[in-house]
């Protein structure tokens, strides 16, 4: 009698039919079996916490009370309070300025550079290798290096400015320059990335179209506005969405460079949520702000995608 092993279970041919059933069971459920580990992780570690977080936003709970006291149901109180809180509203304002300015700057500079580099440039792969570095490096490292550069006394930025005759700026210690500082750091880190994606997009435009437009005596700007930009519109759209979503979650660089200060001038939403939960101990309130952040992100994402949607003929 042949003995067979099937996933570790010994089956002999006498039970052929049973083996057939097992095999049929496995074949039928294979897709689900394959997906099972992933689904388990998604459900347990992503979905459940998100729903838990949403539920928590209707409660009041202190961090130190976990395991000791139960959360207290307060309904919409957290939501009402945050919209009346000057700290929260300032944070939303700071975040909006941050994502707006960085987006425009990164897109503008990235696009300009991409247009420069799209024609036959020798050594392009060297530039590409250099430009991919900033996003590969940990944000914490970026924050630390720039904190060194921004130091008013021995930092190199003030040193170079002094050469040009501009006097010492206390970058990270003054409200009006602190936000500019983190914006500049973000632009440094992400513009090369935007450049690479836009360059990739521009290079997918078939040469024939450009040639034909030249025959039709279109000049550079006409080619740019009427042909190139529309053709890479979806790519611009995706880049904008990706960058905006990442910018809204930005936290690490601010954490290490200014920790939200001075005052609240660099207190982006993600950092504010973090501080509310882990320093202020107010879990329910932080959860309510998290819900707001998620809705904010979804709205912006869908809004941008709609703007950049290409019409279907």
């Amino acid at each position, binding site marked *: 009698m042949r003995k067979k092993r099937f996933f570790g279970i010994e089956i002999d041919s006498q039970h052929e039919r049973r083996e057939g059933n097992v095999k049929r069971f496995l074949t039928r459920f294979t897709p689900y079996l394959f997906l099972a580990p992933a689904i388990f992780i998604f459900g347990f570690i992503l979905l459940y916490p998100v729903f838990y977080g949403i539920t928590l936003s209707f409660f009041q709970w202190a961090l130190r009370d976990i*395991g000791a006291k139960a959360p207290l149901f307060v309904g919409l109180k957290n939501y009402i309070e945050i919209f009346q809180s000057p700290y929260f509203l300032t944070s939303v304002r700071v975040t909006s300025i941050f994502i707006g300015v960085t987006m425009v700057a990164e897109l503008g500079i990235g696009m300009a550079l991409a247009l420069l580099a799209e024609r036959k440039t020798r050594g392009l792969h060297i530039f590409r290798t250099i430009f991919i570095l900033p996003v590969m490096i940990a944000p914490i490292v970026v924050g630390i290096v720039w904190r060194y550069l921004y130091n008013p006394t*021995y930092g190199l930025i003030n040193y170079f400015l002094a050469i040009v005759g501009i006097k010492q700026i206390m970058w990270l210690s003054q409200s009006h320059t602190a936000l500019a500082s983190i914006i500049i750091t973000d632009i440094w880190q992400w513009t090369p990335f935007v450049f690479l994606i836009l360059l990739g997009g521009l290079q997918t435009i078939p040469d024939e179209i450009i040639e034909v437009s030249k025959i039709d005596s279109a000049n550079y700007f006409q080619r740019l506005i009427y042909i190139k930009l529309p053709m890479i519109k979806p790519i611009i759209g995706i880049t904008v969405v990706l960058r905006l979503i990442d910018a809204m979650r930005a*936290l690490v660089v601010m954490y290490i460079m200014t920790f939200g200060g001075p005052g609240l001038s660099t207190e982006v939403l993600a950092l504010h*949520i973090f501080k509310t939960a882990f320093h202020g101990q107010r879990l329910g309130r932080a959860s309510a702000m998290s819900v707001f952040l998620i809705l904010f*992100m*979804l709205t912006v994402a869908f809004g941008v995608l709609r703007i950049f949607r290409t019409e279907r003929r």
Partner: protein
Amino acid sequence: MKVLRKGDMTNIGRYVILIIASIIVLFPIYIMIATSFKTRVQTFSMPPVWLFIPTLKHYGTIIFRGQFLRHLSNSLVVATSTTFISIIIGALAAYSLVRFAFLGKHVVSTATLLLRMVPPAVIIIPLYILWTKLGLMNSRTGLISTYLALNLPFTIWVLRSFMMEIPVEIEESALMDGCSELGILFRIVLPLIKPGIAVASIFIFRIAWNEFIISLILTNRYTRTLPVAISLCMTEIGVQWGEITAIAVIVALPAFIFTFFSARSIIGGLTAGAVKG
């Protein structure tokens, strides 16, 4: 005698701009590396010291001081485990989404896309509570599981797009030869999408290695990873720039290695993501 044409001037101009951009990009990185080799006095001196004799003092200090090696090993263990497990689970799920037709397929596909958007800052609060209740706080397992969850959507998506390129016929003939589904996946499909696996692995490793905020919350001084260790070196009083930049260089090392060896595939992975949508 070569006459400069009008086109040449614009050409030179383009190169100059690109080179200036490259210098701006590389300058902070250079400063980081240089500072790690400077003496303490040199890191504070103004005007800055451009030419100096490098010293390995800071690297020595961090390696022989208390916890650095432990934090380094934590980072290594967490990053490699996350990458390895992500690829396996991700490949299984991606294969399922590509080759099988089943109920709820669209839901899972869309969910994979949407789950990418979950901000880490949002899930740390529930996870803190959950992990505390499950006893997974301050453990590397808890951290690895969290990173898995955050990386799987992207991994599945990348592997899926590579798997879609493989002609079905290869798998069909393997099926006819009596190969099991699992066998097809591991012995035929995966070897064929090695570039895809490489790209995905680099991305997963990068995120797990560089991640800061979740590690900050979920680990203690025995299990924390390097990025958190760096942040704790910054105090209000003096900052040990030499040591901090030395650790920073080590944290940035995988980034340098990956970039140097696989820049093309990284960019390909990123561009494909944006271009293919």
